[in-house]
Structure formats: structure tokens, C-alpha cells
């Protein structure tokens, strides 16, 4: 097992001042480069010596990656904007309260002050077998230690497992998917691509060693939220073991447009049940055009967990996810954020 050390390991540190400088460094060092944003995920990996890197590109001096801008009725949020800024920004709170609430429920105030939106959606999984430095599938080996008869897998996946059963731990990711956000990714040479949030995340079937589409040389620079769902009806709920400083056991984010009690349009996403945050398209199709009531909500809950395959210790996630999706569609007057 990895041993926590008091000091950081040796690496070459670069602190670019602009995006172009950062991209140049990422291009030059390729797979050897580690992108450091808020450091909330990075420092675990480096101090535990579970990952050893030759070069760290610290983005903290790149001012153009910070801030929230209004664009065409929507928002463009710099990837380095802190979670506190996102949670407290007046326009985010007023028009996209779903994201504000999700960001405000990440970890603890100190972590939200330092952690960034880009880092929160790009962080690695919390599977403790993987993070302990053992050579599991995700670490390039040939076994999932969390999916064995004796494994401690209470936090692991109930859906979409493919050899690896680790889950996406992000709270903001389901909210961004529900808001139809897009991720802006740049690489050296001027290349830019815009990826829908739900396609930003990569499951183990596609690439077992990565959580996102980011490849060496890529940099997530911004998250764009279109005006489409501004001021819609939102629902976010996160269930965790402790009330602060904890990752979700399951979270759900929903954006709904209703008229006369009927659901005209809806987007629902859940986190911490699969290796990627899952957009529940089957649920969306089933409830669109139906009245927003308990029957529709229960139908949504049942559809949401269709095909779930719990492991030995995470069977509770099936009714939990079913109930959260039910509540998201039904709506509740009481804020439920624990």
C-alpha cells in the first residue's frame, strides 16, 4: 500500500501565465505532464506516490481561465473558477441554480475555496483500491480488486461496469449534464473542440485508464452553459455518509420545463452510480408529456434503475437511486441536500 509522505516528490514545475504558454508546455511534455488546477485531487496522488510525474503544469497563474461570463443568455465559466465562486455567483444562482447548488455541496468550504469547476469534473475516481496504488485494471493491470467476492465496494458502481467498478465522484458533473453544458477543450496549435458534457466523461468500456476525453496535450479551458435551461425548474440532491467533506453515495440533478402541471421537457443525470455521470435518457423520454405527479415520478424511478447490477455491499444504491430520481421528477418543497 502506498505510504503517505510529508514532502512532495521531485518533479519539474512550470507556472505558465497564459493559456498559450500552458498549451505549449503540455505539447512539449505530452504524457509526462500533469495538469494542476486547484490541487485537491493532485496532491493525494503525488504525496501518496501512487502516481509519479516528471512535469507539473500549475495553472494557478493563468488568469484568463478564471471567471464567469454571460454569453447569449447563457454562461461561459472558466475552468479555473473556484467552486465557491460558482456557487455564489449571482447570475449562476439566479438562472442556473442547479449548478450553484451542486457546487455548494462539494466537500467542505475550504476545499470549495481552492477546488475548481474544471478540476471537479476532471477529477479521478475515489476507488480506494485504485488510489492505494495497486495494479488494477484502471492502473494498467488485469484485475478489479473492488469487484471480488471479498471486496469492500460500498461506494462502487451499480450500472455500466465493464471490468472496473469505480464511479465518477463529481457533484457538478450531473448538474452540467442536466443543463446541457459543453466543455471547451484546447490544444497547442490553436485546436479547439467543444464536447457536450455527457460525452466528456469516458467509461471503462471505452478507455479503462481515463475518466474523461482529455488526452495528453489537451486542456479544459471553459464550460459553456447555453440559455436553453435558464430559469427552469431544478432539482439537485446529494446523499453522502457525512454532511460535509464527503463524496456522494448517489447524487441526482434534474432540469424541468413544465406547463400546467405537465412536463414539457426534462433532463436528468445521476452521479456516483457508474464510472461516468449518467444522463437518464430513458427516464426523460418516458416522463416527457406526462403530468408531474407521483405516478410519473415512480415510473421514472423504476426506469432509472433498470439493469442495475449491485455488488456485494452496494445493493442499497439501487433503492437510493430509484428514490432520488423519483423525488427529482416529483419535486419536493423541502430542500433535500444531504
Amino acid at each position, binding site marked *: 500500500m502506498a505510504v503517505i509522505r510529508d514532502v512532495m516528490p521531485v518533479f519539474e514545475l512550470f507556472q505558465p501565465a497564459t493559456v498559450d504558454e500552458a498549451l505549449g508546455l503540455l505539447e512539449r511534455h505530452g504524457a509526462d505532464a500533469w495538469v494542476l488546477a486547484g490541487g485537491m485531487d493532485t496532491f493525494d496522488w503525488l504525496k501518496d506516490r501512487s502516481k509519479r510525474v516528471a512535469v507539473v503544469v500549475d495553472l494557478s497563474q493563468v488568469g484568463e481561465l478564471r471567471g464567469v461570463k454571460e454569453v447569449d443568455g447563457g454562461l461561459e465559466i472558466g475552468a479555473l473558477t473556484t467552486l465557491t465562486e460558482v456557487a455564489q455567483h449571482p447570475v449562476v444562482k439566479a438562472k442556473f441554480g442547479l449548478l450553484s447548488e451542486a457546487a455548494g455541496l462539494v466537500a467542505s468550504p475550504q476545499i470549495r475555496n481552492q477546488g475548481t469547476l474544471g478540476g471537479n469534473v476532471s477529477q479521478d475516481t475515489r476507488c480506494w483500491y485504485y488510489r492505494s496504488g495497486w495494479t488494477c485494471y484502471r492502473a494498467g493491470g488485469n484485475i478489479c*480488486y473492488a469487484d471480488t467476492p471479498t471486496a469492500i465496494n460500498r461506494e462502487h458502481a451499480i450500472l455500466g461496469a465493464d471490468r472496473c467498478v469505480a464511479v465518477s465522484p463529481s457533484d457538478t458533473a450531473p448538474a452540467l449534464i442536466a443543463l446541457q453544458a459543453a466543455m471547451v477543450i484546447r490544444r497547442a496549435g490553436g485546436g479547439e473542440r467543444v464536447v457536450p458534457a455527457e460525452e466528456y466523461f469516458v467509461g471503462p468500456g471505452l478507455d479503462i485508464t481515463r475518466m474523461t476525453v482529455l488526452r495528453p496535450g489537451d486542456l479544459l479551458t471553459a464550460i459553456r452553459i447555453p440559455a436553453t435551461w435558464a430559469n427552469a425548474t431544478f432539482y439537485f440532491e446529494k446523499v453522502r455518509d457525512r454532511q460535509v467533506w464527503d463524496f456522494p453515495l448517489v447524487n441526482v440533478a434534474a432540469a424541468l420545463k413544465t406547463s400546467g402541471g405537465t412536463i414539457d421537457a426534462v433532463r436528468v443525470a445521476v452521479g456516483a452510480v457508474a464510472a461516468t455521470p449518467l444522463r437518464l435518457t430513458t427516464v426523460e423520454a418516458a416522463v416527457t408529456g406526462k403530468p408531474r405527479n407521483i405516478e410519473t415520478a415512480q415510473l421514472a424511478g423504476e426506469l432509472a434503475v433498470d439493469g442495475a447490477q449491485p455488488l456485494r455491499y452496494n445493493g442499497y444504491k439501487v433503492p437510493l437511486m430509484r428514490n432520488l430520481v423519483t423525488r427529482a421528477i416529483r419535486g419536493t418543497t423541502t430542500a433535500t441536500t444531504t
Partner: protein
Amino acid sequence: MNFLTWGRNPWGQQILTHVSWDLLWASLFAGVMFLVAHASYMVLSAHHKYSESETDALEAANKSLPERIERHTFMARMFHWVMAASMFTLLFTAFLPIVGVRFAWVQWHWIAGLVLTGSIIYHIIHATFFLDFWSIWVGPKDIPEIKAELLRELGREVDAPKPAKYPMGNRLYHLAIVVVGLTAAISGIFMMARVRNFMISRNPYLLADTTWGFTYVLHGLAGVGLVGLVIAHVYFAVRPEKWWITKAMLVGYITRRQYLMHHDTRRWNVKGGSQPAGRA
């Protein structure tokens, strides 16, 4: 270049994980180099070609043989092409993700593996009970033929046995594919216990870590070996002087002339002739 990759298990032990994927490039390189070397040799060398007049004489003496001679039954051809399709699927699903083409490959891979395994079992039964089982194997009795084939390749006229039903190259390739293919298939069946599927219950503790390591290494070695072998096979299948064999695998038969030109009619005695045809 590394040959093997190692990891660490929760007990702090070093464990084999799989072969280094550098070997994929080595196998590709070896396959292409063999192709280039052989093609160059065939263009530049004086390798012996069977003479037309010799075959004319044989054909005149064996008019009683049918015009078309069955070389592969329909079921044998079906096996070959099912195996080929599953083999290509296995290689593409295994190695495209390694070279950077991302797709959900695991399910396709083990389904193709099951098809391959099923076709191999079918082939073993078919060949054992319905075909001339020993005709494809190579043994000490074939040494004179091997020697003659080599001398012919060097341009010498040799009065030595022609092949029976299967040329020496076919038989040596079959031997290689038996070893490598069975290694891949058997190790792959064990590896099914590590992925979720409808046939074998998932049990990652079926084998000890070390044994799993060897299983993955064997599977990987067989896989990269198959890359080179398949390149060689496709190359020979499309070579002009071998095309009659490939065509036979498509349509099932060869012509009387091809039979007389390329085979020892005493060692592969086709019914229909008044007597075994003489050897050239």
C-alpha cells in the same frame, strides 16, 4: 523495449500483468519484413516452377480424372471463413484500442473468442471423424518433402515427392496456428472469468495472482504472434502462384490440371482416375 509488464498486488507482491504492447509493433514489423523479404526473393530468385509440358503429359495420361476435384468440403470452408472472421474481429478488437482507436471492445472480443472456440471444437471433431486427420500434420516422414521443397525454392530440379493434399507451407502454418491459436483460446476461456458475461460466472480468484499473470502473458504473446501469422497468411493467400489454393477455399475445388501440377497423386489419390496418376 520491455517484454513484460509488472504490477503490485495488495500483499505487496510483484505480479506479472501482461506482455508489453511494444511486442505488437515487433510482431507487425516482423510480419511486414517477412512479406518484403519473401516477395523480393520471389521476384529476384530462380525458384523452380513446375513445367507446363510436364503437366501436359500428366493431364494426357489422366483424362479419366474429373475436371473439378474437391479440395475442401462446404463445411470445411465454412469453418475456415468463420474462423477467419472471428480471428480478424479478435485482432482488431484487441489491438485497435492499444494503437489509440477507442471503442467498447471487450464484449465484441469475448463474443468473437467464443465463436472462434466453438469453431475450433467443431473443426477438431470434423477433422477427426470426417476428414483425413493426418493429412495436415507434419512428421519425420515428411523430411524428404521438406528437403525437396527447399531445393525447388532454390531453383533446383528435384526428383522427390510433391505434396499430398496439403503443401508443406500449409501444414507448417497449420501447426503454428494450432499452437498459437489454442494458447489464445484456452487462456481466453480462463480470462472470461474476469469479465461479466452470460456463460462463465465471474470469479477473479479462480487462479492465483501468479497464474493469472502467466495466463495474461500467454494470451498476449499468442495475440501478438497471431498478428504476424495472419499477415503472413493473408500475404500468401493473395500471392499469384498461391491463388489457386485461395480460390479452392472459396469455391471448394481445384482443376484437374492444378491437381496434377501441384500434388503427388499417389499420396492424395483422387477417386475417378483409372489408376493413380504417375508422378512427374
